[in-house]
């Protein structure tokens, strides 16, 4: 078995092992969950290390015929587009599992679903066969449904069913698009690379319809305006670790799908769609930021800021330039790190105070220096402070889009201002000002939380100062991708 | 003796068993009638094997599997009977009617 399969199925082995452990042995379950995701992380780290930065071709390819009758194969591979996200997925899952050690309700099922979710996410990012891609795509849905529905907050059932139905609807339409591609390719194939090779055979009208079908599925995941309303609810109701993955990875599946499937396979339609896409991106940026500003709930604020950040991704993609695509891919990674850790930090405060109301706090900065420091760093990264990861990616998105859409970019710069405004207001209300004596007894962060969050903060800094850490891997693939999209 | 004899015998046995399954009120009786059905089938297997395919053993092999499965079925069935009996204090199937529409 080769590396990618190991990465994808290591968590599955862990999940099955967990099923065999009695309910009561919480420690063993947590240990197995952490160990299997750590194994996955180590393999992904090795993948990251062994990845050949000089080529745009697929690497670590595995291809086994699966359902020969329909020309479906078990076809895995990574290029610069996916390798960083695979590593990010493994990392974020590991830290959220570590963070989730504080779950006490039905521990066994929780970690089982959690690891299954990881399998689905990793599978989406490494599969090169559309059918396999779809299978993994759907595989993420069920664990997420249970994770939100069982371990969530007060409105968990509503949130879970909404998430499930909404995204299922999107992916069904996406399935139609996939099938349309299959039946219009000659010979019939689900292979993404082969489809991209045949892209010139598809007429524009057909491309547009398929693009829209795929776009619906992806846009709901991204989430692009106006398909974003499931997100705040699902984020707020989900337990902390799940929110991290929801924001950090699941949203990326939409962007990834667009970059992996829609753009290379349907380049004409993509070009046709860009004037709409840029408008949606700008709406995402400004609308997301403005709505986030109205929030009183920390978690909701971070959730809406995700919509804003995904807008930057879309902005970078809308230009169809190397710089913009690089920015979009890097933005996926940095948003995963930054928003992931923001959700963890919100979880930290919620676990202690049992409230997320911004107005309920005050002056925490003096008593909780570590927490305040980490939160400030991540907030600053989120609002695009140079030296931290968010800046590089956002700047690249802006830079890439500016040539094609200068006025839209100028308008979306307002999003930066609003983001700064609501995040700073949050910091002011939570950490600054006189200390609210109500929270005098709360402890600062403990080791478990630090172990979960500090690596993310360190990576935020590393990518901010040395973006080549990611960009060197991404760039060749993106250059090639832009080449075939603009062919 | 010809194959027909054995087939006739098995047919009669099957019909008797079927009648038992349809009419016995006692659940253990039903189980026993099911055994009759299985045995009728077994007779057919062995007879066909003996008369039509004398050199082969597939029919007999099937009988072995049927016997084994029958054993399993009886074991589980009787365990269920005991469990139901403990709860309902009755061995009559009319009393087991919680599925009534």
């Amino acid at each position, binding site marked *: 078995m080769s590396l990618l399969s190991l990465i994808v199925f290591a968590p599955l082995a862990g999940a099955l092992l967990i099923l065999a452990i009695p309910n009561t042995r919480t420690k063993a379950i947590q240990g197995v969950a952490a160990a299997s995701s750590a194994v996955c992380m180590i393999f992904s780290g090795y993948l990251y290390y062994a990845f050949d930065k000089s080529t745009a071709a697929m690497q670590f390819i595995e291809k086994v015929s699966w359902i020969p009758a329909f020309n479906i194969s078990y076809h895995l591979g990574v290029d610069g587009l996916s390798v960083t996200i695979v590593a990010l997925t493994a990392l974020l899952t590991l830290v959220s599992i570590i963070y989730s050690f504080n779950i006490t309700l039905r521990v066994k099922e929780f970690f089982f679903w959690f690891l299954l979710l990881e399998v689905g996410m990793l599978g989406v990012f490494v599969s090169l066969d559309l059918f396999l891609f779809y299978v993994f795509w759907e595989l993420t849905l069920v664990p997420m449904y249970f994770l939100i529905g069982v371990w969530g907050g007060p409105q968990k059932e509503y949130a879970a069913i909404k998430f499930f139905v909404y995204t299922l609807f999107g992916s069904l339409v996406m399935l139609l698009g996939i099938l349309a591609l299959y039946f219009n390719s000659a010979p019939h194939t689900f292979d993404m690379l082969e489809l991209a090779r045949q892209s010139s055979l598809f007429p524009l009208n057909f491309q547009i319809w398929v693009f829209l079908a795929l776009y619906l599925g992806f846009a709901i995941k991204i989430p692009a305006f106006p398909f974003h309303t499931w997100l705040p609810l699902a984020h707020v109701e989900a337990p902390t670790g799940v929110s991290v993955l929801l924001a950090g990875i699941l949203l990326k599946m939409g962007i990834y799908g667009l970059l992996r499937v829609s753009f290379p396979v349907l380049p004409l339609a993509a070009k046709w769609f860009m004037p709409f896409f840029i408008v949606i991106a700008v709406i995402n940026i400004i609308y997301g930021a403005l709505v986030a500003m109205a929030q009183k709930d920390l978690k909701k604020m971070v959730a809406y800021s995700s919509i804003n950040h995904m807008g930057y991704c879309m902005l970078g993609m809308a230009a169809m330039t190397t710089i913009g695509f690089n920015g979009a891919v890097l933005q996926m990674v940095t948003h995963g790190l930054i928003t992931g850790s923001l959700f963890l930090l919100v979880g930290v405060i919620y676990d202690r105070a049992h409230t997320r109301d911004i107005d309920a706090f005050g002056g925490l900065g003096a008593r909780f220096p570590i927490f305040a420091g980490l939160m400030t760093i991540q907030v600053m990264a989120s609002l695009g402070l140079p030296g931290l990861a968010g800046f590089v990616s956002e700047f690249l998105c802006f830079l890439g889009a500016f040539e094609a859409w200068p006025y839209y970019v100028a308008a979306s710069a307002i999003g930066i201002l609003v983001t700064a405004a609501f995040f700073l207001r949050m910091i002011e209300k939570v950490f600054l*000002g006189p200390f609210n004596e109500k929270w005098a007894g709360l402890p600062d962060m403990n080791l478990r939380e630090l172990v979960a969050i500090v690596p993310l903060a360190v990576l935020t800094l590393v990518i901010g100062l040395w973006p080549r850490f990611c960009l060197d891997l991404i760039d060749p693939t993106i250059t090639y991708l832009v080449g075939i999209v603009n062919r | 003796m010809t194959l027909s004899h054995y087939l006739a015998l098995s047919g009669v046995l099957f019909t008797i068993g079927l009648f038992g399954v349809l009419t016995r009120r006692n659940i253990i009786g*039903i189980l026993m009638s099911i055994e009759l059905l299985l045995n009728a089938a077994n007779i057919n297997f062995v007879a066909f094997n003996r008369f039509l395919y004398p050199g082969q053993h597939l029919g007999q092999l099937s009988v072995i599997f049927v016997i084994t499965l029958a054993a399993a079925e009886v074991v589980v069935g009787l365990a269920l009977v005991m469990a139901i009996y403990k709860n309902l204090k009755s061995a009559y199937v009319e009393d087991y009617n919680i599925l009534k529409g």
Partner: protein
Amino acid sequence: MLEYVFILPLLSFAVAGVILAFGKWLPGRGASAGIAVAAWGFAQAAILFTKAIQGKLALPYEVSIPWFSVGSTQATLGVYVDGLTIAMLVVVTAVSLLVQIYSIGYMRGDPRFKRYYAYLSLFTASMLGLTISDNMLVFFMCWELVGVCSYLLIGFWFEKPSAAYAGKKAFITTKLGDLGFLVGLLSLFYCTGTFRISEILELAHIGFIPPAAAGAAAILLFLGAVGKSAQFPLLIWLPDAMEGPSPVSALIHAATMVAAGVYMVARLYAVYALSPVALDTVAWTGAITALTAASMALVCFDLKRVLAFSTVSQLGYMMLGLGAGGFTAGMFHLTTHAYFKALLFLAAGSVIHAVHTNDMREMGGLKNKMPVTYITFLLGALALVGIPPFAGFFSKDAVLAAALARNPYLYAVGAVAAAMTAFYMARALVMTFHGEPKDMKKYDHAHESPPVMTGPLILLAAASVVSGWALSRHEIFERLVNFEGVLPFELHHVSHGAVALYAGTVAVLSMGLGAWLYKSKPGIPAMLRGKFAPVAGLLDRRYGLDAFFLKFVALGDRLSSVLFIFDLNFLDAIAIDGWAWLTEKLSRIQRWFDDNVVDAAVDATGTVTLCAGRLARLAQTGIVQNYLLFIAVAVSVFAALAFAG
């Protein structure tokens, strides 16, 4: 020597981390490390400066390493040193060093002493990075970083809600300008295809950039400077920024960071020089700023805020100088202003340290208690007002001459502002140090500051006195910092002597008037204030700029809550949940249809239905054997069919 310039910001950056992590074990809780690095930086800058004016350096010097590349675009980390850089370096390192020394005394006993020094070092690192960066991308990064340091340091005593608010206000207001900077940077990149300053300047020189595009980019970039250098109308944050510790005000909000906007305009002067519109925008913004800020200072009672308004006003002068084509004049004023304004802030800090209030109405007569502070403050004030032969005289004179050469109206505005400057400085000086003590308790408590604080004051006072004269002698500064390109407009010829004479006279007269009024006739200002209450109120309210921007904030808040309601109640509730509701309703309609139409039809079939219903009910006996019987019947029917077939 030039090869080691890159170490300056890196060292400061490293020492910030060291102080934060190990400050507890360092001598002076980290202050020693910060000061040592700052001293080293100053030494290096001073050596560079000496060599540069002796002409021993090959300028401009440039070196870079690749940072990252996307596609064919390369981003670099590098150093670009020319005369402008060196002048700025000296200012930054000198003020930073003196402020750090001064802070030992000022911040003694503060619980977050360590963090204070870490922030200061981080700020110095960013400011140095901004100064020496060879490309606009890193320039922009450092530009933002100094903003964050400013945010952190203004809100350093964040338990005070006003400090927390001021930090936020400063950050967001400058961020508003930075949006323009960002878009300007993007369009500059779009025009030139590079971030390298040397290449941009080169392309501007050879006229590769179309003037219209250059003008647009320049004005957009200037918006960033408007925010950072607190120009009209974004000047509202700087007075509030005085909530931070006084040394911070001296370093960041007087000498260095706020001057970064000016430095940026000077850095890209070749681009600005392509477009007269851009230069006029700069000049007029500067002039208006100089006038409005000076007028606001007239009525202010907070000592530090008077100085803050004065800073804004002087920054306006610098912009005015640059915009009017006086490249050297603007930068010269930046340099001298850095010394005497840092001096004034530090002296004011010394006063505040002694009396624990910012309000000048509670001070008075302090010259006897704090002689060193008084003398140094006096020297700083004279330099600021522009009394010959103090530093401000030379630089302000140069700026005014440049303004006159460009446009007499610019000059008139600048001259009026200069008179106001003299007046409010006299007022501040008198109210603080002369006259009778107003609050005896505070007066009795007051004492001269320790040598660690007065030392930097004396050094800065010396610089304030001589720097103008020393740097203008033999045109030292002009040889170091000058613009070799072509200006887009003709300049009138002006006589420097006349301008100097006039400016000096106005300054002396105005200052004398202010001193006389506030010392001998304190009733008159109060009476005037009463008589012109609307005007005073308007000045107190900063021409309503605050209210204007707060209205914007309120508008944003309103918009955001409306959008949220829209999101929750329309998009989510109607568009999404509405679908679900509609689907459910449809199924209900269908059920009604079933009940009332289909069932009715079924009923109409009468007995057949009844029998069928009974039969169907019979089937559901719940008795296993019934089911079995049905199966048997079915089997036999099928068997019969099979046989029949």
